[in-house]
């Protein structure tokens, strides 16, 4: 054999040994997708995500500003004793708003307790969103009218609900997509895996959107996974995945929009991991200085998603001082209205405790209801 023949044969063997692997299509980009740098400058793209329209980005900016103002107001309400507790998502606004802008009103969102900003961005009444944390009931809104499941506290359990709802909707001929929101900690729970597996096996149109904010209360990401990134968890279930810079609003919206299109087209679930950061402690009751350095938090301050989008939109001329002031005023009015409406303690009715345990109370619950009524009557007589 001549040298050339040997080289050709070797090249042929290499080709034969590495046929195109369909599994590679399931893998995320090796680096998180970015479209805007930290100063809001448009980056040259190494991928083919279509750029969201300027109108969509201005809408996103407005939602993010109002969402952050809501978040700050809710934290303040804990200090005034109006809320029992509040888990802030400050710093995650690109994810919170991107998740709901990527879906239709008729699509379902399955949020966690940290996703209040996503809910208000879906135009759910903020007082109803905060009912859980104010403590006058659990879920304050009607999930069936706003197509949003109750905020889920048992981690990752909503991943399977999203799969079942999406499958059930398709079963009945509707093209609804389910958007399941989860955090990095929740990816360690069994229901995250069972949800993705069910969705994949039944080709259910679900987008699993992991907001990796680096901490599960105090436990860092390194204790949740040894995977290169959480997006790599998709391939084991046959679920295509992507990772995105979670503080880049343009990239978040672009990646989630494609994931939703994939699901709606009947191609099954999609996993998106957004790399972001929880700027505040787990809740107002947590002390984050016990487990992370101020320097780390400061570094993330420079990657603020709102500042990034504002800089980009100003540079393109889509946003000017007047519009920024207008949005800011709208956010202030939103917060003021919330303050007013949260000022008075809500009326609670102890007898309503028995109303919704079952469609009709059991005889045992009716007995207990009468007992409580008697206790209340006795209290009233005592007060009189």
């Amino acid at each position, binding site marked *: 054999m001549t040298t050339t023949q040997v080289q050709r044969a070797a090249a042929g063997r290499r080709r034969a040994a590495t046929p195109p692997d369909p599994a590679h299509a399931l893998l995320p980009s090796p680096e998180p997708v970015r479209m805007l740098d930290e100063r809001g400058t448009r980056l040259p793209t190494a991928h083919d995500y279509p750029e969201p329209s300027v109108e969509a980005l201005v809408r996103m900016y407005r939602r993010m500003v109002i969402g952050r103002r809501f978040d700050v107001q809710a934290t303040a309400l804990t200090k005034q004793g109006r809320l029992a507790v509040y888990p802030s998502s400050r710093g995650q606004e690109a994810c919170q708003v991107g998740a709901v802008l990527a879906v239709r009103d008729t699509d379902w969102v399955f949020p966690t307790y940290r996703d209040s900003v996503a809910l208000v961005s879906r135009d759910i009444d903020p007082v109803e969103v905060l009912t859980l944390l104010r403590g006058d009931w659990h879920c304050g809104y009607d999930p069936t009218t706003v197509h949003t499941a109750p905020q889920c506290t048992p981690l990752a*359990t909503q991943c399977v609900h999203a*799969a079942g*709802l999406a*499958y059930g909707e398709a079963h009945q001929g509707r093209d609804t997509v389910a958007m399941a929101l989860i955090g990095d900690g929740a990816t360690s729970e069994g229901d995250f895996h069972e949800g993705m597996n*069910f969705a994949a096996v039944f080709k259910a149109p679900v987008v699993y959107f992991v907001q990796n904010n680096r901490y599960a209360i105090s436990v860092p990401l390194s204790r949740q996974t040894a995977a290169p990134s959480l997006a790599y968890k998709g391939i084991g279930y046959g679920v295509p995945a992507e990772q995105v810079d979670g503080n880049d609003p343009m990239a978040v919206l672009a990646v989630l929009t494609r994931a939703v299109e994939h699901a709606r087209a009947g191609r099954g679930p999609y996993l998106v991991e957004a790399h972001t950061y929880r700027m505040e402690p787990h809740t107002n009751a947590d002390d984050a200085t016990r487990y992370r350095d101020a320097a780390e938090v400061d570094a993330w301050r420079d990657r603020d998603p709102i500042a990034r989008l504002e800089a980009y939109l100003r540079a393109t001329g889509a946003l000017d001082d007047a519009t920024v002031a207008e949005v800011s005023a709208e956010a202030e009015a939103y917060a003021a209205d919330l303050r007013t409406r949260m000022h008075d303690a809500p009326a609670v009715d102890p007898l309503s405790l028995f109303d*919704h345990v079952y*469609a009709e109370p059991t*005889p*045992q619950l009716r007995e207990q209801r009468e007992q409580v009524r008697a206790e209340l009557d006795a209290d009233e007589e005592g007060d009189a």
Partner: protein
Amino acid sequence: MAATTMAKALNAALADAMSADDRVVVFGEDVGQLGGVFRITDGLQARFGDRRCFDTPLAEAGIVGFAVGMAMSGLRPVVEMQFDAFAYPAFEQIASHVAKLRNRTRGALSVPIVIRVPYAGGIGGVEHHCDSSEAYYAHTPGLKVVTPATVVDAYSLLREAIEDPDPVVFMEPKKLYFAGAEASLPVRAEPFGRAVVRRSGRDATLVAYGPSVPVALAAAEAARDEGWDLEVVDCRTLVPFDDETIAASVRRTGRCVVIQEAQGFAGVGAEIAWRIQERCFHALHAPVLRVSGLDIPYPAPMLEHTHLPGVDRVLDAVARLQWDDQPDPRWLPSLEGSAA
């Protein structure tokens, strides 16, 4: 009337419910092509197609959680947990979501799911196949808990469970699956929340449910030789519970033994005994007694007969119902040392 079994009656109830309502979907492990390990779903996939009856991945939390989402979309899922102890991975979904969604949302969202659980022992099963897990569910507000003891009830209660607006844990006594009986199906019996007197008697009431009902009936039959005329009440539904029928029976007889196959401590039988003593105290001639399984993990097959409450253990309890107006000597204060 035709000869049938509880397994066939359950199968007929599923088929009739699926015919009556397109929203009813049946799924779980091995329920499709195979028809379930106990054949309860036999033929459903062939008849209704694999969109109405299908196999799932082997993951019980996933099965129940999937059912929650499907119910949210307007379907009526009926899921099978293959065996009692295999349902434990689903417990978080059941306790935190299935049971609570209606209440969490002030009635806006309901999840009418039926979770079928083949339960209890007496079939020589190896470990993890024979647990009596009813107390876990009955202790969880928001669930209805139903357990048939007859072929007619198996059909009727399952149809009612599928039609019910609330989630129902439907507990099927495995050892009764294949016992033959005469019944004409379809049939409707007493609704949820109604206990039924299976045998009338004057001297004492045996209260039982599920796998213990045949034991109670056999004990009542055997008790005739001792001169006791025993009444047997079948609870049928543990939630909602029929206090009235049971209290009325005990007020008539003045004596009561509660029988359950499950281990006794903190079990359903304890709750029933308490409810009876509270309601019937002045009609009682003896403390309410309870016969149950032992407080041990379910034993290996060759030892299960020691664990399971049988006719003899029931009759021993009946004998201790203070027929001669003497207190049970086991509970008298010790005299040792009291003279000092």
